[in-house]
């Protein structure tokens, strides 16, 4: 009896999936699906007769307002939408795996989107697959390149633009500016998972501090153990805890480069600054001056190591609209083409420091200063 009941229940749930739909539609049930099916096929034919570009984006966070990669990329897309009147849309993957991302790319493609932009290294496998499945769709992958699981080298198809940032160069300028501004003290850092882009930021930042110590007579200490890998990009409480430890152990500046985890670091610095302590943070990826604001309008953010994601996204969309999309290769955004750097205005940096920092950026552009991508040994600055 129970078994029969269970089976009937199961069938009923199956039926109710349709019933749930049908009950909304009432007597129109037969015509409605046919109608909408026609609608869904229409966009697929669009590119042939109507060249309007639809630009989509897939998020690798649970929110678009992550004050980092996703937000900056979307800002570039919306700016392009305002300038060129294109249709845009972002989707948040239900399942943040290669399979989940591929599903969202399929959703965008089926809805007629023919340019899809993805921020971050987590998309490398999904874009590797997608560029082959959808050869008539343009893909842009920021800060990474399409690569098969376990493959030696990336494989960039003609319909994909892979954008890479020389993150060490922005780290260098920020490290230099901070050292010059504070002159004395000890720097620490709060990072997320040990991934290549963050490693570049770290080594660049350290080289910048060392450059200031050696050429401008500043006295900034760095201990390797104070550059902490928290292991998470999404744990604000953990970030706050680690930052508190760093400040307690004598650091007066913590470089927070780990998404939401970093916001915990910002909160700790703000709490201490409200109590009158002289502590500073450095932001990452985007200008995080606003995130460090105190009640009296000051900010604990000294500067930020930026990747100009919004600009590169905008440039790519513009290139596609102008028919100048260049696929099949790695495009490097560095100091030379304005892809990386620190914010144009840093209210917490003095004018002289800003001037020196700009000069250093110029030297990186001309190649007078070469920032290494290899790890830096800071043992001489303990």
């Amino acid at each position, binding site marked *: 009896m*129970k*078994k029969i*009941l*269970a089976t009937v*229940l*199961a*069938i*009923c*749930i*199956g039926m*109710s*999936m*349709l*019933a*749930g*739909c049908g*009950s*909304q*539609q009432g007597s129109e049930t037969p015509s*409605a*699906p046919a109608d*909408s*099916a026609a*609608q*869904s096929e229409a966009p697929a034919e669009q590119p042939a007769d109507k060249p309007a570009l639809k630009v*989509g984006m897939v*998020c690798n966070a649970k*929110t678009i307002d992550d004050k980092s990669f996703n937000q900056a990329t979307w800002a570039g897309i919306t700016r392009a939408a305002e300038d060129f009147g294109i249709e845009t*849309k*972002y*989707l*948040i*993957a*239900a*399942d*943040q*795996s*290669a*399979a989940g991302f591929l*599903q*969202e790319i399929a*959703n*965008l493609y*089926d*809805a007629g*989107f023919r340019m899809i932009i993805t921020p971050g*290294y*987590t998309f*490398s*496998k999904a874009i590797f697959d997608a560029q082959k*499945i959808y050869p008539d769709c343009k893909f842009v992958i920021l800060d990474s390149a399409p*690569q098969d*699981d*376990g493959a*030696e080298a990336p494989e960039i198809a003609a319909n994909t633009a892979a954008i890479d940032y020389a993150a060490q160069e922005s780290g260098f300028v920020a490290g230099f500016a901070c050292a010059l501004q504070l002159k004395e003290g000890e720097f620490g850092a709060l990072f997320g*998972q040990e991934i*290549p882009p963050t490693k570049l930021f770290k080594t660049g930042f350290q080289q910048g501090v060392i450059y200031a110590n050696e050429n401008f007579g500043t006295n900034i200490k760095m201990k390797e153990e104070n550059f902490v890998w928290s*292991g*998470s*990009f999404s744990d604000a409480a953990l970030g706050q805890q680690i930052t508190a430890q760093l400040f307690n152990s004598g650091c007066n500046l913590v470089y927070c480069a780990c998404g939401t985890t970093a916001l915990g670091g910002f909160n700790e610095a703000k709490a201490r600054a409200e109590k009158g302590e002289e502590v500073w943070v450095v932001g990452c990826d985007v200008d995080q001056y606003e995130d460090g604001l105190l009640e009296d309008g000051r900010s604990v953010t000294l500067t930020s190591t930026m990747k100009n994601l919004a600009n590169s996204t905008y440039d790519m969309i513009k290139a596609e609209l102008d028919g100048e999309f260049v696929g099949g290769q790695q495009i490097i955004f560095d100091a030379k083409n304005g892809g990386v750097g620190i914010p144009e205005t840093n209210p917490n940096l003095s004018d002289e420091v800003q001037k020196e920092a700009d000069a250093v950026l110029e030297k990186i552009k001309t190649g007078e200063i070469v920032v290494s991508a290899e790890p830096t040994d800071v043992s001489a600055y303990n």
Partner: protein
Amino acid sequence: MKILVSVISILLGFVAGALLMLSSGANPLTGFSYLFQGGLKSVTRICNTIAYAVPLMLTGLSVTFAFKTGLFNIGAPGQMLIGGLLANVLALTAGLPRPLLLPLVIAASIVGGMVWAAVPGFLKARFNVNEVVSCIMMNWVAYWVVYIVISDHFKSTTIDTESQVIPAAASLKTEAITLLTKGSNLNLGIFIAIIATALVIFILNRTVLGYEMKAVGFNRFAAEYGGINVQKNAVLAMVISGALSGLAGLTFYCGYLSNMRIGVMPSQGFDGIAVALLANCAPVGVVFAAIFFAILQTGKGFMNAMMPIPPEIADTIIATVIYFAATSKLIEMNLDRIKKFFGRKRPSKSEGSGEHVEHH
């Protein structure tokens, strides 16, 4: 009666979702039609939906099984992680031919889930530690164990936050199924889920063990008085429940995916609770409830891409549908009142009380 409860909860969910869509200026009719198209439009999409549903079926069964003994297994995510980890590690290191390797990998995932669930089960039986608390703690232990083991020994060469990809010989994916379903994620996991469902039904309805477990679930004091070893049954129920979650980990990490990511708690573990609630703890119902959830999840993106609503609203709509679907207990409690309201005469039934979760 039970059927009615599930049906009403799903309908309520859609009504609430429709209201939300209306309030954001979208047409619910087209919205829901895109939702189902997204989940079921093509062979690939149907198969992807089923592939997504497989781990949900297993975690749903896992939660159901523990429910039957009056235990709340919220540790399914941790059990999935450890089951998946053992399976992945074996797959990466063993180097055996497929006919040998695959059964071993499956066994490893079962053992992993069992061990991880045995701890809360034992603590519950021996020291009366609330299994909800210990399960949640075990989830985090699993989370960091996976983190350390993978980043120290099995890190992928391409992406630092993922493990190496398992060899095809150890994957539940088969070329035949992938080709047949036009490149979907469907894999042998579906057969594992079907077999597991049959086994759970068999254990619960046809064995002394199942009888004892249900007796403990109905009333543990009466069961104890009747000579049933409550402690032993608590541990056993958790171990079997853990084995099912371990298998869910296998189907997710060695089937749906081909590697593990560090720093991620699998949401399927928690969704299993909602699946079990919607199915009213009926094993066959779990299968269909899991498919229903999978349609919502896989269809959501397409609905979102086709409609002028932001993803946050789409997420809220789906969450509302799920929320109402999981309120089946509330509807069950008020069903008599609803019936009276409509003036139908029915003899009142009291057998449903046994399905309640034991309160602590």
